[in-house]
């Protein structure tokens, strides 16, 4: 029996040679961007010591660069940026709510434990 419940959405994603050229250009752009960001990260990590005063800024720079890289991988390489808005938010929103919550809870708790040890050692 021929199945009538399958709609071949995959056929809609086909594109022509010219469109392919444009897409490949974008892929190469993202490649260069990811490579450059990685190189910058390595240089900053190797040259700036964690004990230096600039480390606070460097740490945040790492986190921002990581998020930029992640965004390009997810939205461009994984084509989530080309999907419907509803799909995009269904994937991203629950994930971010969970991740941000967990980061907040565990880092707060971790610092509290550290402080508790400090107090314990002083007494």
């Amino acid at each position: 029996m021929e199945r009538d419940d399958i709609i071949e959405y995959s056929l809609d994603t086909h594109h022509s040679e010219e469109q392919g050229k444009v897409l490949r250009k974008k892929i190469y752009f993202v490649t260069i961007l990811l490579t450059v960001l990685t190189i910058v990260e390595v240089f900053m990590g190797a040259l700036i010591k964690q004990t230096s005063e600039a480390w606070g800024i460097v740490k945040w720079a790492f986190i921002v660069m990581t998020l930029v890289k992640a965004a390009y991988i997810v939205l461009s390489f994984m084509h989530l940026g080309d999907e419907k808005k509803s799909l995009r938010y269904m994937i991203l929103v629950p994930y971010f709510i969970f991740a941000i919550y967990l980061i907040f809870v565990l880092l707060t708790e971790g610092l509290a434990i550290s402080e508790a040890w400090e107090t314990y050692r002083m007494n």
Partner: protein
Amino acid sequence: MAGHASEQIDSATSWGGKVSPFSTSYGKLMMWFFLVSDALTFSGLLIAYGFTRHGFMGAWPIGEETFHSMPFLSGNYPLLYVALMTFILIISSVTMVLAVEAGHRMDRKGVTKWMIATVIGGFFFLGSQAWEWSHFIHGSHFGKIELADGSKAIVHAESFGEIKNFKVTKAGHHHKKGEVLTSKDADLLHEYQHAAAAGHIHNNEITLHDGSIAEISKSNNEKVELIIKETGSKYKALNARIKGDAASKMYEEVINSGEKGRVVYGANLEINEYGPQQYGQFFFFITGFHGFHVFSGVLINILILIGVMRGVYHKRGHYEMVEKTGLYWHFVDLVWVFVFTFFYLV
């Protein structure tokens, strides 16, 4: 019976749907669901790592001090090897997205070419990780030492003095007095480290496995630097450094103390020379779990590649299978971006 019923009521009446609210196929949607759950697992692991690190009293290992070796080269190359691994994974992600793009043009040759490149990239990454693990487990030439005041320090130096030979001064079961053991007879470094960790080196004399005692002939270590990682009664400052002759002398004192456990080499699940034991456990678990994902990714890519070469997807009229395995492969790259930042850099 269910099949019978569904024949009588057509799907439009029963569900009134037939259209995905997301305009995407079932397979792709399920892959996204899987990836979200897998992403939550990795977040849990990395955040647990952050939790442990924040709650730890003492200095946590620093990426550029822990990972600074390159295969075939001696010397200090902070983070370069990990950067290389990251780059390999990024490039294999790019070849994957090019394979997907070729699939959208129904270019079978292009898909084959880029899929092969992706598989090769995956193998390169796995090989790099095998080297990294091996290096992490075997450790450095110097190890981590416990100083006289109870503080613990990791050791950096320009070079490790070559061990020339062991000259037996007291016979054991195996070796006779006066015998000279060179690198041809035994793995001297291995014997030396083993004896140092067990407290079998005292006053430049090493007690070998067979009970014989030998004098060590070894060149000096150059530019030794001790970095204090755990506070003792004298050295309190975290990450404080001791340089120059003092450092060299202190290091030799520890090695020649004849006390067991004053020096630790390499890493296992109980102890490691880089820092607290949780550090080693997180290293093995997080990079191991990621490496397992890469391994499965390479296997899946090979299966899909076989399908591409046999023309399975060409006959089907679309290369969605390549797209789905591509999603998984990009995800593996995505996770590594985070592991790279939070395990190696920060």
